[in-house]
């Protein structure tokens, strides 16, 4: 009894395939496209998650290692005695005109030099 029912089912399936092959092909194509779409979505999700994960790892690794990037200190430029302490700056200016102006670059003196007839006690450029 079961065998005969199985055989009759198979027979009907073959008959259905043979009667409408284009419909069968379309259905198969649809199933294939839906599967590919699912795979594509999963792959994209994995890619985005990987990039985000690598970025976070890189951020934490960079924070873990000190001293390998030149960090521009926040103290004024040369000519001052200064201590750059995390979270704050101590600056000993001490004298007019000796402080670095702006902390960067090269800037003119507060008062420009002037010609003078006075005999100089020191000379620049002679040694």
């Amino acid at each position, binding site marked *: 009894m079961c065998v005969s029912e199985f055989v009759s089912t198979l027979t009907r399936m073959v008959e259905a395939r043979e009667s409408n092959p284009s419909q069968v092909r379309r259905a198969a194509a649809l199933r294939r496209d839906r599967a590919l779409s699912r795979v594509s979505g999963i792959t994209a999700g994995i890619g985005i998650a990987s990039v985000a994960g690598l970025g976070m790892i890189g951020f934490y690794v960079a924070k873990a290692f000190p001293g390998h990037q030149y960090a521009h200190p926040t103290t004024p430029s040369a*000519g001052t005695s200064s201590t750059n302490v995390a979270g704050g700056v101590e600056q000993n200016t001490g004298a007019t005109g000796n402080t670095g102006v702006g902390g960067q670059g090269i800037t003119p003196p507060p008062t420009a030099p002037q010609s003078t007839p006075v005999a100089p006690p020191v000379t620049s450029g002679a040694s």
Partner: protein
Amino acid sequence: MTSPIDAGALTRVYRTHQLGTVAELVVTNSGDLFDASELLNRELERIDRVASRFRADSELTALNAAAGTDVPVSEDLYEAVDTAIRMAEATEGLVDPTIGHALESLGYDRDFQDVAPGVAGTMPAPCPVPGWRAVGMDPQHRIVTVAPGCTLDLGATAKALAADKAAATIHEHLGCGVLVSLGGDASVAGPPPTGGFAIGVADSCRSLTPAQTVAVFSGGLASSGIDTRRWRLDKTMVHHIVDPTTGLPATPCWRTVSVAAANCVQANAASTAACIMGTSAVEWLEARRLPARLVGRDGTVHCTSAWPCSDEAAAS
């Protein structure tokens, strides 16, 4: 505010020989000269102990020997290296502290007095220096990292830094106006005398008298030139102003360049950069409104608009 002391009355000068050069000191109150000289000597000894490339026991020598590793350094050395890096950045890499190996290749591997008579060797092939970005700085932990194969030389900035710090310290402790000059790199601090501190400006190291005298009221004034430190490398004359792009002595264009700036470090960096960049130096200095006097190889004098030109320079 200026003190009532006439600039012409400042004739007492303390002179000593330190850092391989002449150190000079002028103060507005002659009674402070002795104490000021003590402070000056202390500052010079400190910078020598920290930043000398020729002392086996200097902190800089130890830092160079540990290239490739993170080295915790003293506050003084950190400031000296940081100053050099800032000036490298400010001069677009022209005044670069990573020229140590280049100088050694040219024979300048010891005190200049031992190099001046001449050294044996051959001119090295052009090779750019590593560059100031090869130096890592961690201000929070005061760590300096010099890239492997890189040697620091702080000669372009350390002397001027010492002048600035000595002047500031003297004024802070004694209250007087002060002029400190180290090999012609001058720093002024405190209230200047009436008419300012008179500083002579020479055309070259061979000049017996200054070509011009200017009054400086604040900041620094420094001169650089290829004639000051020259020596013979076998049969070739070389000098100490290295072009970082070649690792060789800069092409001679100016005999002497004198610049005034906000402090001596900046003035020295600007004058050294001008010697390296050649004919474009006048425009570069003018763009920064720096008072400057440039003497060409033929003796022609050029001044920027902020410099008090003498009649001779105005006519040239």
